[in-house]
């Protein structure tokens, strides 16, 4: 005897609203569609689908809660636009198969959302906001590949940016997202946003579990020098006095907050 067809049907029942509806009105056709054996059909007929339906709705709610958490910045805006529930409901109705690991379902949501924006003719800045959220949450969950800085900063040891990190150029100014200061009240506010290239540095946060940090890069020269295997003496030796005075406390702060590490 096998159970795999019955398990497939139950799994699908949890994921797919159409299966849930069909089980109520044309049960035999659902059993046929999932190729249930006669033994499986006997078992399936004993299932209380009303109870299972409550479970399925609860499960869907939990899944959507996780995607809201992954795309926190995006959903703050979608809630303002009163589009959040529609986006999520459209997502679950479309994505009814496959596995549901966090990373996979999160990537699946991003792919879905790109087409949703295009199909619904929504401002494309929403795709960039989704990408911003996606990078933030992926880095939060990413593996820590470094250790916390313990010794004091030595000017004669090479410094580097701690992995994992990502530098991303956006075509809109997403700076206000970082400050939670995006003043969006309606779709017109989004449409009115002008393109303005912004470089954003995302990095795994080493001091706080399951989180990431983000900086706008407005001095690319400084940022690039951080990852060239230079000592701080070498890095500051190449710049004028004004920059030296500006950069030294900044380097100390970056070291203290574990954005940069120090090689032996």
């Amino acid at each position: 005897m096998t159970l795999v067809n019955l398990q497939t049907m139950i799994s699908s029942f949890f994921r797919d609203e159409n299966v849930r509806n069909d089980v109520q009105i044309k049960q035999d056709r659902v059993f046929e569609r999932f190729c249930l054996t006669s033994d499986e059909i006997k078992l399936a007929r004993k299932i209380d689908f009303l109870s299972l339906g409550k479970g399925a709705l609860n499960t869907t709610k939990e899944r959507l809660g996780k995607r809201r958490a992954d795309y926190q910045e995006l959903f703050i805006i979608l809630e303002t636009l009163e589009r959040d529930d529609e986006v999520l409901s459209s997502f679950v109705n479309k994505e009814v198969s496959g596995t549901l690991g966090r990373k996979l379902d999160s990537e699946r949501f991003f792919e879905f959302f790109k087409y949703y924006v295009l199909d619904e003719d929504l401002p494309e800045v929403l795709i960039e906001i989704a990408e911003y959220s996606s990078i933030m949450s992926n880095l939060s969950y990413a593996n820590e590949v470094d250790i916390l800085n313990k010794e004091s900063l030595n000017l004669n040891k090479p410094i580097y940016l701690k992995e994992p990190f990502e530098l991303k150029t956006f075509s809109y100014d997403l700076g206000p997202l970082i400050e939670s200061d995006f003043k969006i009240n309606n779709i017109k506010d989004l449409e009115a946003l002008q393109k303005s290239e912004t470089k954003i540095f995302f990095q795994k946060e080493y001091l706080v579990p399951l989180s990431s940090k983000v900086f706008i890069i407005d001095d690319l020269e400084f940022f690039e020098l951080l990852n060239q295997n230079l000592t701080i003496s070498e890095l500051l030796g190449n710049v004028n006095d004004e920059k030296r005075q500006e950069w030294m406390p900044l380097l100390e702060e970056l070291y203290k907050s574990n954005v940069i590490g120090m090689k032996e």
Partner: protein
Amino acid sequence: VKKLPELGVGLLIHYSEKYKNYLEHVNNHVDFYELLLIHFSENPNALKRVKKELKKPLLLHSAAASLATDGPVNETMVNSMKERIDNADAPWYSEHLCFTGVSGLQAGTLVLPIMTEESLNIICDKISILNKKIQRPLLIENVVNMYNDVGDFTHAEFINEVLKRTDSKLLLSVENMSMSKRFYPEFDHYKFIDELETSKIAQIHCPLGNLEEQKITPDSTYGSLEKKQQLHFDVLNYLAKEKKVKPNALVWELETETNSIAEPKDFINYLEWSKDLFFNKEVIKL
């Protein structure tokens, strides 16, 4: 079965900043911590650091193995579980008695198995593979009855049979019993416990919400969350006094149905109460 150590009363913590702050208040009272394997699936090495930071024994709780799925064991997943369990040096780990889907299609939750002889064989074979690969004791946890018992056994009989055939111990989840009543109103906590082989209970999971919020939060199944919480305390009392259950560990879970987690002082009160209740001290009345 290898004899499990007696760990006492612990706390299930989510790997997040919220808990880091919480532990500063409660750490002195907690005997050990339990962590969710899923929080380290992309970051297994972090467990070594967390173990050093917490300076207490760690248990690990899994929801990934899908023991009842009619299909082969995912070896990559088992190896990844082993890496994380070894990193934490957990004296044992736990997994749910359920299926989470089939190859290529996940239900998104922990589904009660269809309870037939065939299903038992599938589960026992998978547990045997996990035991060989992971080489640490595995506890089996009861899941939510999201539907009625279907097959040749009741839920409790099915659990007993798995424990007997695999020589495993039980992690009894009080919250999963309570959630069962939400979906399947015929479910009865005490009937379920009475059917269980309670001498096999090695660990208990019990939720503790924010007590103030529970007072003002209505609940369609229990009347209020306060009443649901009281039922949990009553169930613990029943297990300790009527069923004489002697677990190796009791774990409080703070992520329950209130927006805020329990106040540290309330948590400490109930933690001490449960230590006395299950670990051979004079019972404190709350």
